[in-house]
Structure formats: structure tokens, C-alpha cells
């Protein structure tokens, strides 16, 4: 079944194919909204005088690392850039309109702080044969995303496992 993959997909395996730049600077108000939603009271996200003991200043919740490269849902001057463009490209080329995350591996190297500008690049690591699941017929794929700050320092890395499928 692997042979049935279009050439434009197989040639992506192992190569950086998409880059995302930060549509917004990292902002404490945004990460504190998220912390509020999950009721996370850790002072390193909220309280400057406590954070200074560990991280010198407040830091963003680590779970939000991928969020800093997500575009606005709507913008007055341009169309939306899809986050995880490579994932959406695979769905489109393979004609698998639906997709869910099945597994995540994420590593954190440097804390992300107010005013940071995060960018990322995406690499297709693998793609499966056709499978039939409860949700429908599709394929699994794994995308590696590396995140950088404005100084081009790698702040984290994640592997996202997806199922792309059709009903």
C-alpha cells in the first residue's frame, strides 16, 4: 500500500517542508487565560515575585508551546495560515478531509517568556499504509516540529502522531 502514496508525499519524508512564523508575540494575558481554563495556579505563570526564584520572570505554560505559532482565526488583512500546514497538506493531497491527534511527544528545553517570538519547522517522519478504524478509512502519520525563539535557539521539539481519515 505504501507504493500507492503520491510521489509528492513520499519525497517529503525526512525533510523540513513547512515553516511557521509567530503571528503574535508571547503574552502573559494569553497564557493566563489558558491557565485559568485548566485551573493551574502555579505561581511561575502568575506571580512575578515567586517566579523570580526559579525562572527570573514569569514563564508561559509549557503546554502552549505549539500555540504560539497558531495564526488568528480571522485577520483583517490576510487569509489565515493553517497551523501544522504539513498536516493539512497531507490531508488535502491524500483526500482525507478529517484528522485527529492520536499521540504527542514533546520536549521542553528553554522556558518561553513574555515578548518571545516563536517559530517552527515541520518534517514528515513517517506515513502508514491505508488502515480502517472506527472513525473511518485513512492513514497514520508522524510530524516532527521544532520550535525556535527569536534568537534561533531551539526551545522545544515535538512529534505529533495523526490519523487522517474520511467517514
Amino acid at each position, binding site marked *: 500500500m505504501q507504493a500507492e502514496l503520491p510521489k509528492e508525499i513520499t519525497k517529503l519524508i525526512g525533510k523540513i517542508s513547512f515553516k511557521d512564523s509567530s503571528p503574535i508575540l508571547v503574552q502573559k494575558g*494569553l497564557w493566563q487565560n489558558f491557565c485559568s481554563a485548566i485551573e493551574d495556579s502555579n505561581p*511561575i505563570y502568575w506571580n512575578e515575585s515567586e517566579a523570580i*526564584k*526559579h525562572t527570573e520572570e514569569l514563564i508561559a505554560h509549557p503546554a502552549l508551546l505549539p500555540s504560539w505559532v497558531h495564526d488568528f482565526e480571522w485577520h483583517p488583512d490576510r487569509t489565515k495560515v493553517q497551523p501544522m500546514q504539513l498536516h493539512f497538506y497531507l490531508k488535502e493531497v491524500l483526500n482525507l478531509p*478529517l484528522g485527529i491527534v*492520536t*499521540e*504527542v511527544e514533546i520536549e*521542553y528545553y528553554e522556558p518561553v517568556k513574555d515578548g518571545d517570538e516563536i517559530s517552527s519547522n515541520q518534517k514528515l517522519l513517517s506515513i502508514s499504509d491505508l488502515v480502517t478504524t472506527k*472513525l473511518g478509512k485513512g492513514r497514520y502519520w508522524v510530524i516532527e516540529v521544532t520550535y525556535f525563539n527569536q534568537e534561533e535557539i531551539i526551545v522545544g521539539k515535538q512529534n505529533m502522531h495523526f490519523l487522517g481519515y474520511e467517514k
Partner: protein
Amino acid sequence: MSSKVALPIKKYFTSVKNIQAGAIFSRDWAPLHSNQDWAVNKANLPNIIMNNYTLNGLLIKYVTDLYGDATRIGKVTFDIKKPICPNETLEFHGSINNEDKVSDELSLLNINLDIKISDQIVSSAKIIAGVNLTEKKLNSPWKIEAKTWKSYIDEIDL
């Protein structure tokens, strides 16, 4: 230390509001996290589902709530076996798989977590966290330089 040590069970109730809020505040606009009609009729899902950033946030919160604000998360790995929908009580069942004492004031914990709904595991996670388990609180794990920190993470096989 290599024998497993059970950690306290924590609970979290999922509502439509907190699933939507978790998605929106993580800038995840996908309709399967906020639009019930779309989730059911277009995506074949039972309801809107929790997004992976919210789930990751709750996993990290479980560990930092237990070990305190100095806890430094190095790596999180988790799967999603079943969609997590509104109006469910999630139970977080954690255990320490391994504790590696790097120095007097730094231990690397390898934590296993199962999230259950009505005794069914809906997600399993593994987390590497740097903690200071001593009474001395002079050196926070956050003070470790990034290159050294990464080398610690690389050495642990989850």
C-alpha cells in the same frame, strides 16, 4: 530507585465550557473542540473533544501541583485512546516509574500517568520532571542551563 510508587489520584470534571475554553485559549480553532454539531455530524465523534494542548496542560498541572512550583517539566509523551468529551470525570492515576538523583538538589522523576473515565483508560502518559526533593531550596531545577537540561532528557528512555 526503580520500584513504582503510587501517587495521589486527582479528578477533573470536563464541561462544554472548559473544553471549549482550553481549545480557544490555546489558539486551537478547530471545530471538533468547540462545535458540537460539526463534531458529531462531520467528524463522526460522540461530542466535542478535549484538544491535546488542554490534555497536556492537565498532565503538567498534575505533576506541578504535586511537586511544587520549582518543578521543571522536561518531556511529556501521551496518547489519546478515546476522545475526551464533556460531562465526564477524569481520574488521574500517577506513579513514579523511576527516580534518578542527579545531585543533592535535583532528582529526575519518570512518572507514569493513566487518565481514566469510569475505570477505562482514555489516555496514558509518561512525564520526565526535574524536582528538588530536599528541604534545601537554594537551587531550582530551572537554574540548570538548557544544554545540560537537554542532556538529562536525552539520557532517559521513556
